[in-house]
């Protein structure tokens, strides 16, 4: 079954810095999605990238997709304390293990 594996598992940065999270998956996909989860809350959709796209932007988010390497990355620029959350990739129904991002004010 498809499974995303994110790395790093945890990331701690200072406000204003950029955060990069990576996701690898095993099988072919039609699209890949990134979600965010605040502790104990539901997941919120951030961005969807289709298999024929290589890069996509949404505000401070930048997602890349390399289908030949079966990998994706999520970049959050100019991070804020409010970005503190867990971030998951989904391929597209199966979720990865997540990266816990902590942004220190």
């Amino acid at each position, binding site marked *: *079954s498809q499974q995303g594996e994110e790395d790093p598992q945890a990331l701690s940065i200072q406000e204003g810095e950029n955060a990069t999270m990576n996701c690898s998956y095993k099988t072919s996909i039609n699209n890949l*999605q990134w979600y965010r989860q605040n502790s104990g809350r539901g*997941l919120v*959709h951030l961005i969807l990238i289709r298999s024929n796209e290589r890069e996509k932007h949404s505000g401070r988010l930048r997602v890349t997709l390399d289908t030949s390497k079966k990998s994706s990355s999520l970049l959050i620029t100019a991070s804020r304390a409010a970005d503190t959350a867990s971030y998951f990739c989904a391929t597209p129904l199966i*979720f990865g293990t997540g990266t816990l991002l902590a942004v220190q004010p």
Partner: protein
Amino acid sequence: EPEVTQTPSHQVTQMGQEVILRCVPISNHLYFYWYRQILGQKVEFLVSFYNNEISEKSEIFDDQFSVERPDGSNFTLKIRSTKLEDSAMYFCASSQFGGGLPGELFFGEGSRLTVL
């Protein structure tokens, strides 16, 4: 803004009891899903549902579990005889598109199940 709602937010039950978790998906969505998340662990896919039948299910979704859309608005997950390891947060989600090209999933806030 339309949202997915789940009830109850928290349920405590005794091992062996039956539990029904309820979800009201977004009204014009056609695809429905249940996920679970054991505390501190990943979000695990349980089942997807379309056109009044299960379209996909995971290994976790065994005979203990069932889903139903009893009317035009509710989507339920039933756990027949709960075990301690069923303790988790259960998330319902819905999407407008699905099948081979699922789009954005909209999640509810979850139902926390505690089995004693």
